[in-house]
Structure formats: structure tokens, C-alpha cells
């Protein structure tokens, strides 16, 4: 005992040498699986959170002095752990607990520990399902790690202790003395001095100073965080700190609402806290789930809900964030956001759980900083959720690419709409793994980036980005040159203008048609032009499709184009299911336009015939982008409706 005790103190005094985290942080590890427990203990020991292993509380009482300093304690029973914690309240800095335990639910333990002892608790599990993770967060977990645990992850967990201490200090006492504050940080990182340092101030000061000297480099990270925290907190901007109180309120609210209904919005309402945004809470944990480095997560936590960082995070976030956003209802902090962000959020809110993908995209659109690779990640993630939104894109047929394309297009379109897009019922994410495609992503990302420039046709650059290959986006790339036309057309207030551009594009796409045909199409388009931009847009989309298919003859293309143009104008009741698959089975595109139904029919037939889902994808992308521009002046309903009608027409007759 004494040896260990001395060792413990030694550890604290000498500091961690080259370790970059506080040595001697006292951890209690709880896991019913002995193998995992042993591994965890070994890892923690390796991290220099040294300690002695106690099999059970009995052992502790028998052979060990309860007062002894045992930096790493393990137990395989939650009840024992609770007992340990209750009896030695200030002997532990951090608790790591498994989720799945026989004698007590890990979440329950987590809650109890968090509320009673106000210790940071880290959850551990093989199960990494989002809902489980959410549950962990709802119950107040500082972090959620997946088994098998890696040492790198464990090396960072001390940050939770520091953070918790720091915020506790901020909440509980006024540390006018910055030095004192910093000292506290170091002290706490050293391994859990009480908040009340007055009693041992000198000792702590000495220790901390010594430690500071020795660990100057090591503590850099810690101090940096501290400084950053300080900087942030000294900012005038009122930042909500996730304090114990907030957490308690949070848990209470969640319990009240029930896990399923615990939508962040409702929670926030219940908690009645000002300026508290979802990001504060969820981002940190969900980020952890993603492959983002834990450093980033800490930074995120540090920055909290500040808008700029939000933006930053959104561009960097992976899937996790999306989920967060998706899960969240309307953003209460909407007003505090910039217009673009508001839009994003509105979209998110409007789209509900399924809207996150679109919101994601929207965010991307508004984040010009997003890079294609980010977008790629994002899109990949985005595509996962199913499309349950009652929007046009619903019921997208088996043509996954199309599905993906459409929602994306629509989403893009949505982002174009200034404010109040909550009505937007346009596509949400459509499920489809095929879309998760590098080229696609880049295409979209490009598109999105372009969207930031309202007047410019997004497709312009985006299309260019698409690789030239059989890939649908290829179509876009050829179209890019024509897009400027669209811009011009736009100014005239006619959507049709872009279409001609498309027409030309389509003709150039896939090198199926000649430019000669474009004028023809153009004429058609003009004719079909109406204030209802939607039709034109859809026609554009269709245009894109045909060219891609090598099997499509030029004539068909032109005809298709023209038919598209005409058909576009006719809004009809939407049939949710866009049987784009029909495209593949489409008939002869040579059919001329007839009554709008006929046009659409032929169009759809054409498209199906084209069997180029890829092209359609590109088509829809283009369409959506066009529609965006066209619709930016129209109500979202209209667009949605128009799209719907257009698409419905595509259904095989």
C-alpha cells in the first residue's frame, strides 16, 4: 500500500516525462467481461494512469487501506463500482464503464455517477449503433468508445477530466486569479485535486509549478486547450457552458420526453436555456464516433455552438454530425445563424430526420470552404439514410443513381431558396448507395459550391468537375461550357434560357448530338417556356440524360429534348414514384411531342430507352441546379410541385 501510495505520489510529482497527459489520473474501470477489463487496465496503466487492480470492494477492504491512492481501479460489477465511488467520492477522476453489464445497466450507472458524483464517465461497448450512442450521450456520457479500445483513444480521455474541472470551476467559483485557474487546470490534470485548493494551495502550487516546469511540453496540449477555452470564454459572446446544471436539466428533459421523443428541440424547450444549441451537446460525441481525431472533438467542444466553428465542423464532420442535425428538429438557434445557415437549418428542420442529408448538402452549398473530399465524405454519409420525406424524390425507383441525383438536385435547389425554406418538401436524402461515388460526390460538391453564387449556374463548374467517362456526371462536364448561357437566361427571367444551354450541352454530351440539334431544342424550349420554370428544368434534366447513352441516336436526343421541353411545361399530379427505371426500358425517343402527356411519355420512354441511369443522374443534377436558379424566385412549393409533376410524367405510361 504504502509503496503504491508513494508511487502514486511520485507519479504526480515527477510528471509524465514524455507523456502528453496527466499521469496519475485515477480511473475506475467497470466491465463485466474479465478479458476486456484486463485489457483496459493494461492500456490505462500503459497510459500511466497507474494503479492497483482491485478485484472487488471486499479485496479493497481486506487487504487494502481504503484511503490508499489507487490510480486505476477495476471492477467487474457495477454495484461494486457504485459503492466504491460513493465511499471514495474524491478518490476518482474518471469512470470508464461498459454499456452491457449483467447487474446494472451501464446507462443507469452512468447517470448515477454523473449526477451523484459529477465525475466524467466514458462509455464503452462493442455496440456502436447510433441510437445506443445517443442513449449514452442522453445519459450524460462524456464520451463513447468502441471496443476494442485503442490506446490512442485512452490517451485522450484526460481531457474530459480537465474540461469538466474547468467548467466546474467556472460555474462554482470566481477565479479572478488567472494563475490560480491555470494552476487548477494543471492540478486537476495531475489527477484530481479538490476544487477547494485553499487548503493545500501551497502544496498544489508547488506541485503544479514543478509539474508545470517538467511537463511544459507535455502539457502543451492541455494548456492550449485551456487557453483556447479561456479565450473563448473571455469573448463577449455568451457561450453556454455545458455545466452540471445543464446536464441535469438535459437528462431530466430527456427522461421526461422519453428517449424516442427526445428531440433536441423539445429538450431545449424543456431546458429553457438560452442560446443553447444542439451542437454543444451532440457534436462532440458523434464526432467521436466518426473517424475524426479526438483532438478535433475537443476543439469542437471547446468552440461549442459558435457559428463559425459550426460551419467549420459541418464541413469536417462526418456522418455523425449529420445524424445530429438530422435528428434535431427545428433549430432553435436559427435566429442566431447567418442567413445561409438559417437556411441550412431550416431545411434541416423542415426535412426532419430525413432532411439531414439535404441540410448537409445545403450546408455544403453554403460552405464554400467545403472541399470536394469533404463533400465526398459527406455525401457518402448522407446517402445512407432512407428517404422518407414526403417529397418528390420519394419513391425513387430502383435506379439508385437517379434517386441520389434527384434528392441532391432538389436539395441543391432548396438551398438556393432564401430563408424560410421550411416548407420545402423537396427531396430529402434518398437512399442509395450507388450515389456514394467519388465522382458523384465531386460533382455534387462542385455543384454545391457553385450554389453559393446564386446567380451563377451551379452546374457550371460542377459539371466540369465530373469525370468524363461513362459516369453520368460526365454529361455535366460537357455541359459546363454552356452554363454561362443559363446565367444569362436567368436574368431574363426565363428558365428556358438555361435549357437551351442544356440542349447544347446535351448535344455535346456523349457526343451524340451535334450543335445543330441544339437550336432545335432551344426552340422547343423557348416555346415551352413559361413562368413556370419547373418544366423547363425538368426538360433540362431530361436533356442531359439522353446524350449520355451511347445507344441513343442523335435524333432521339433532339427529339427527346424537344419533347422534354414541352412536357416540362405540364405540371400534373405527381406520382410519387419516379420510375426512372423506366428510362431503361424506354421506348423510342423519336416520338414527337404530342400533348403534354404524350411528351412526357415519350420523354420517359426516351429516358428509359437510354438506359443510362448515369445520364439521368447527371441530368437531374443539372436539372436541379437549374431549377434552383429558376426557382429561387418562386415559392418552394411551386418547384416542388413542378418537379413532381414533371417527374410523374416520367413514369412509364
Amino acid at each position: 500500500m504504502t509503496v503504491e501510495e508513494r508511487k502514486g505520489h511520485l507519479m504526480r510529482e515527477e510528471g509524465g516525462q514524455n507523456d502528453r497527459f496527466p499521469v496519475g489520473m485515477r480511473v475506475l474501470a467497470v466491465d463485466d467481461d474479465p478479458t476486456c477489463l484486463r485489457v483496459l487496465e493494461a492500456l490505462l496503466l500503459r497510459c500511466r494512469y497507474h494503479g492497483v487492480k482491485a478485484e472487488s470492494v471486499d479485496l479493497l477492504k481486506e487487504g487494502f487501506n481504503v484511503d490508499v491512492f489507487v490510480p486505476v481501479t477495476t471492477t467487474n460489477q457495477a454495484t461494486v463500482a457504485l459503492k466504491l465511488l460513493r465511499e471514495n467520492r474524491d478518490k476518482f477522476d474518471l469512470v470508464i464503464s461498459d454499456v452491457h453489464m449483467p447487474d446494472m445497466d451501464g446507462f443507469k450507472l452512468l447517470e448515477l455517477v454523473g449526477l451523484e458524483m459529477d465525475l466524467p464517465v466514458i462509455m464503452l461497448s462493442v455496440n456502436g449503433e447510433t441510437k445506443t450512442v445517443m442513449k449514452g450521450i442522453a445519459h450524460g456520457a462524456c464520451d463513447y468508445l468502441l471496443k476494442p479500445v485503442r490506446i490512442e483513444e485512452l490517451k485522450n480521455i484526460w481531457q474530459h477530466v480537465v474540461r469538466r474541472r474547468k467548467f466546474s470551476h467556472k460555474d462554482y467559483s470566481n477565479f479572478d486569479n488567472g494563475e490560480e485557474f491555470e494552476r487548477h487546470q494543471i492540478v486537476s490534470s495531475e489527477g484530481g485535486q479538490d476544487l477547494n485548493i485553499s487548503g493545500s494551495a501551497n502544496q498544489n502550487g508547488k506541485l503544479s509549478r514543478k509539474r508545470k516546469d517538467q511537463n511544459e511540453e507535455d502539457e502543451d496540449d492541455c494548456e492550449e486547450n485551456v487557453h483556447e477555452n479561456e479565450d473563448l470564454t473571455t469573448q463577449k459572446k455568451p457561450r453556454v457552458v455545458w455545466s452540471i446544471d445543464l446536464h441535469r436539466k438535459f437528462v431530466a428533459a430527456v427522461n421526461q420526453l422519453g428517449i424516442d421523443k427526445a428531440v433536441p428541440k423539445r429538450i431545449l424547450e424543456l431546458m429553457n436555456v438560452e442560446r443553447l444549441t444542439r451542437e454543444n451537446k451532440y457534436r462532440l460525441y458523434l464526432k467521436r464516433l466518426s473517424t475524426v481525431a479526438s483532438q478535433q472533438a475537443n476543439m469542437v467542444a471547446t468552440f461549442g455552438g459558435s457559428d463559425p466553428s459550426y460551419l467549420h465542423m459541418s464541413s469536417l464532420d462526418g456522418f455523425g454530425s449529420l445524424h445530429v442535425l438530422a435528428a434535431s428538429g427545428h433549430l432553435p438557434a436559427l435566429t442566431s445563424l447567418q442567413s445561409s445557415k438559417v437556411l441550412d437549418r431550416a431545411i434541416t428542420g423542415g426535412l426532419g430526420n430525413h432532411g439531414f442529408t439535404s441540410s448537409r448538402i445545403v450546408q455544403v452549398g453554403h460552405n464554400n470552404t467545403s472541399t470536394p473530399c469533404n463533400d465526398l465524405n459527406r455525401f457518402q454519409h448522407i446517402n445512407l439514410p432512407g428517404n422518407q420525406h414526403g417529397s418528390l424524390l420519394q419513391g425513387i425507383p430502383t435506379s439508385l443513381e437517379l434517386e441520389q441525383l434527384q434528392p441532391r438536385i432538389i436539395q441543391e435547389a432548396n438551398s438556393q431558396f432564401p430563408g424560410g425554406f421550411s416548407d420545402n418538401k423537396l427531396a430529402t436524402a434518398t437512399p442509395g448507395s450507388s450515389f456514394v461515388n467519388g465522382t458523384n460526390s465531386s460533382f455534387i460538391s462542385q455543384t454545391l459550391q457553385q450554389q453559393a453564387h446564386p446567380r451563377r449556374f451551379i452546374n457550371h463548374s460542377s459539371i466540369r468537375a465530373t469525370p468524363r467517362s461513362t459516369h453520368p456526371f460526365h454529361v455535366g462536364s460537357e455541359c459546363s461550357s454552356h452554363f454561362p448561357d443559363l446565367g444569362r437566361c436567368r436574368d431574363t427571367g426565363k428558365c428556358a434560357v438555361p435549357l437551351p444551354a442544356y440542349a447544347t450541352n446535351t448535344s455535346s454530351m456523349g457526343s451524340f448530338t451535334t450543335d445543330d440539334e441544339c437550336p432545335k431544342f432551344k426552340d422547343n424550349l423557348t416555346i415551352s417556356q413559361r413562368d413556370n420554370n419547373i418544366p423547363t428544368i425538368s426538360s433540362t434534366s431530361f436533356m442531359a440524360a439522353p446524350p449520355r447513352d451511347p445507344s441513343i441516336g442523335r435524333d432521339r436526343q433532339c427529339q427527346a429534348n424537344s419533347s422534354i421541353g414541352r412536357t416540362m411545361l405540364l405540371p400534373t399530379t405527381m406520382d410519387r414514384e419516379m420510375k426512372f427505371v423506366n428510362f431503361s426500358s424506354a421506348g423510342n425517343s423519336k416520338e414527337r411531342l404530342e400533348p403534354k402527356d404524350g411528351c412526357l411519355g415519350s420523354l420517359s420512354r426516351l429516358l428509359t430507352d437510354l438506359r443510362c441511369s448515369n445520364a439521368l443522374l447527371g441530368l437531374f443534377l443539372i436539372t436541379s441546379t437549374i431549377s434552383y436558379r429558376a426557382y429561387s424566385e418562386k415559392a418552394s412549393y411551386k418547384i416542388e410541385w413542378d418537379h413532381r409533376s414533371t417527374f410523374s410524367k416520367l413514369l412509364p405510361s
Partner: protein
Amino acid sequence: MSLMALREQLNGLVNSMFLEGLLDDQFEQLQMLQDESSPGFIAELITLFCGDSERILAELTKLLDQAVVDYQKVDAFVHQLKGSSSSVGAQHVKLACVQFRQFCEEHNKEGCLRALNVVKHEYYLLRGKFDTMLQLEQRIQAYESKQQI
């Protein structure tokens, strides 16, 4: 057998296990944890794992033997086995557990029984190799302590 030869044999064995996929990088991490301060770490861990796994497998056999299977309990055990096998780096066992859990969710007794057999098979295969590994390690350590003397 000389120390060198023993060491070579051990390394060869472990490498082959990695190649076959019996072990994954988690085991590599654990190997790194073993050093002078904890020389018997791997051995201890393997022993723990084997003991625990066999207990779980016995429980699973019992549960699935019943006429009406309590799938929740089965799932809990499989979950635990999955956790411990992933902590040790027993890749095949872990994958077999994943499959097992799927059958559990479907309440497919037939599937569960088959999955249990797969898990058992993988486990015993691994266990055999672990045993050899431990024996070699013991001999090496005996050698080393003898040399020190």
C-alpha cells in the same frame, strides 16, 4: 531446442495466425503492451479469454438446448463473447459472433445452432494455437531465466 529456434517458432506461429486472420491488429497492440514490467501479460490475457469464452460457450449450448430459447440471454452472451474476442484480437471468433447475433435477432434457432458451431469451431482452432503459443512462451521464459541464472 535453442532459444533462437524457440523464438522463431513462436514468431512464425503468431505470424501465421495474423495471416490467416485468426488475429487482428488488436492483438498486435496487446503484444506491444507486454514488456519487462508485465512479462506475462499476453499469457494472462489469453488464459482469461479462454476461460471466459469456454464458460460462455457452455452457457450458450445450454440455452440453445432448451425447447424454448431465450434469445435475449443468448444475445447477451454472444455480445459478451464478441466484446472479449475483439478485445483480444480474435478476429474469426468475433466475426462468427456477429453472424450469430444476426440469427439471434431473427430468432432463428436453426441458424443459431449453426452459428454456435461455427463460433465453437473457430474458438477451438484459436485455442489450440494459443496453447501452443503459451507453451512456447513458457519455454522461452524458462530459457531466459535459466540463462540469467
